[in-house]
């Protein structure tokens, strides 16, 4: 089997949500001493991008999206140690702190965004649900995050996103992070009104948004 076929199989494994294949192919790539950077960029990433396209066309829905993200995670778990050994660790697209804001315990949507971002090569710190504003700030500083993503599923808790923006400004930390907001009641208008850096409607849009905003450094 030549390398091109291997890369195509990787893409297919992600698109079809075949976790065992995704994992086995990653192991094979390591064993064959392939250029792992290329494996990620040309094998796996195109897979998750195809999944995104299928989602946008309406062919794929949440279960397919999550399955593919999990395949991606399984493959990356195999590749990451090898990449680090080869001092090629910096495949990270950027660092992200994400969580559902205080008072809100809903987190499926947030989980989905987190796994899609991770599948697309971002280093994601997921703080979970009902996260105090202070914890977002602390964690973002600790991991030197590029992005802070705030999720809110209720119109009531959505107001916490505005309070978070105010908190950042008070502390003089606003320029250090890009803040993105999301959640069922949130829209672009709201994001603009509270001075957030962006809004995404779903997990795929979030990936695109984060990529378009780029790293701060």
């Amino acid at each position, binding site marked *: 089997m030549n390398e091109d076929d291997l890369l195509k199989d990787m893409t297919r494994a992600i698109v079809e949500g075949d976790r065992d294949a995704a994992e086995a192919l990653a192991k094979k790539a390591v064993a064959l001493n392939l250029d792992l950077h290329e494996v990620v960029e040309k094998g796996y990433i195109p897979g998750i991008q195809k999944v995104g396209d299928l989602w946008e*066309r*309406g*062919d*794929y*829905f*949440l*279960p*397919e999206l*999550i399955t593919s993200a999990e395949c991606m995670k399984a493959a990356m778990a195999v590749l990451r140690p090898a990449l680090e050994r080869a001092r090629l660790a910096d495949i990270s697209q950027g660092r992200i702190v994400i969580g559902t804001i*205080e*008072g*809100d*315990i*809903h*987190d*499926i949507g947030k*989980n989905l965004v987190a796994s899609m971002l991770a599948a697309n090569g971002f280093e994601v710190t997921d703080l979970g*649900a*009902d996260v105090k504003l202070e914890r977002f700030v602390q964690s973002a500083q600790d991991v030197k995050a590029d992005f802070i993503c705030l999720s809110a599923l*209720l*119109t*009531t*808790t*959505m*107001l916490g996103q505005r309070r978070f923006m105010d908190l950042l400004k008070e502390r003089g930390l606003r320029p250090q992070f890009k803040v993105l907001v999301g959640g069922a*009641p949130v829209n672009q208008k709201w994001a603009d009104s509270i001075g957030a850096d962006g809004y995404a409607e779903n997990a795929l849009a979030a990936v695109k948004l984060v990529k378009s905003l780029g790293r701060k450094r």
Partner: protein
Amino acid sequence: MNPTLKIFPQGGSIQVQKNILLIDALQEAGVNLISFCHKQGLCGKCFVEILRGKQPKPDIREKELLARKRLPGNFRLACLYRITKDLAVRIPEAARLSLMPVLKHGYRRTILPDPAVRKIVFAPSRPDLASPLSLSDQVRAYFPGLGKRASPDLLKNLAVHLDDPSGKATAIVYDGTEILDFEAADTAEQNFGLAIDIGTTTLAAELVNLNTGKTIDDATALNGQARFGADVISRITTVFQDPLKSEALRTAVLDSLKTMIEGMLEKHRIPARHVYEAAVAGNTAMNHLFLGSPVKTLAVSPYHAVFSALPPLPASETGLLMNQRGKVYVAPNIKSFVGGDIAAGLAAIDLAEQKGDFLFIDLGTNGEIVLKKGRQFTATSTAAGPAFEGMNISHGMLAVPGAVYKAEYADGLKLMTIGNRPALGICGTGLIDLISLFLERGVISPQGHITGREKKIGVRPNLFLTQKDVREVQLAAAAIKTGIRLLLGLHKLAVADLDGIYVAGAFGNYLNIPNSMRLGLLPRLARKKIIFVGNSSLAGAKALLVSRRERIRCERLAQKIRHVSLATDAAFQKTFIEALKFGAWT
């Protein structure tokens, strides 16, 4: 030796305890008599004929009532008669209290009316030189135990009524402990109440004769609060951002209710002052907004309510169109997302008394699910979203005339619309039928993917379903399915273990069971085990209106129901994602 009581015309005899009241002995034998005055010997409704046995001398009031009703001398009030020896009685048909059916269809259950409001007619004598008894003394003599609480304000009112040519007045007694008001003349027959269901989208009310428990009329309307937001959370947010809006929301629902109540009262020529009690059932947020209570805590974790069970409130404090000295009873809330509407629904079907394991599901924007396992009750709620109310669906609409409510496949697609009108859109039940049919025919895959090249399924030239519409239905059905699965799992129950599933909500009888099962909205279970109960919140409100016993039982049940939060369940996400796939399940 215990005395024997023979009851005619049905025949049969029972042994009774010595010194028991005849009315109580009859009740034990299953013969229920009308009593407006709560067995005080005041209303004269429970006269029975003594065929054989002791005939004690009637007391002065009983004598007066006998004369007024022109009854023969062998009639006695069953509420004053104590049985000491063998006795045979005949029950006049007019004295019998008939059982009230609780639900209109689906599940047969009757309750015995036992309203809190009773009207007692009496004849106060005009104070004159020969009998200088003050009004308050007269009231005290007439209503021992109650008279002391007759306020000067009430007595003033009574004094005004003394001019009535009939020489009679009527006292409105609440729960046997409080005189609400006095009225001129004999108004005993004019005793009305309101059962009210405050739905987030729709309001429903019944005008009820409190003496008999019979419904006189009913009305529905849209909840006027809708202009502050379609769903519960957005209305709470309105108040959250501007606490002054609380009053605007309260007024909005009161205005809608006023129109409904006025309509019913005018049609039957009943003045509002003859409506003495209302029983209200709504979800926790609706109950709070109706009373103007703060709602901030309802929508922020840990999501707690200001009140659960409340004592009957003075009508004047609620603003409902009715006698302002009357009372308003609010069905007890179970938790912030499982409210008085569910407590009332459980009362309507008397779930607590049923033997076995049951599910009760209220299908709405917020799907509430209650599991009864043996004597244990657990409730949860699941955000189904408004798809089944036709919202967020390209051609979705409420179940109003012109809505496709049913679809079949027989030589082509056949659609049935409400009112047989040309199809304007699709309501919840129609949506379920359509998706199920398309699923069966492979037009939609089990993953919810529209298989044709065009991501649109035409139903009629101007009516279609899009891929997004199918996704909305997947999400709604998955939410309900996840709730059922997790609740059953928590109690280690399988679907097959269930003795029945009660399905409440606006769908009523129109929900097609095989289609719902094919979709996966309901688990696969024998057809006869699925029982539609329609608007059980309204039925429950009526039960709570006409029976004090039902209130006590409902409050007791509401207190013992355990609430579980799905969103914090570790298995929630996995179960939900799996549940998105269409298909029958058990």
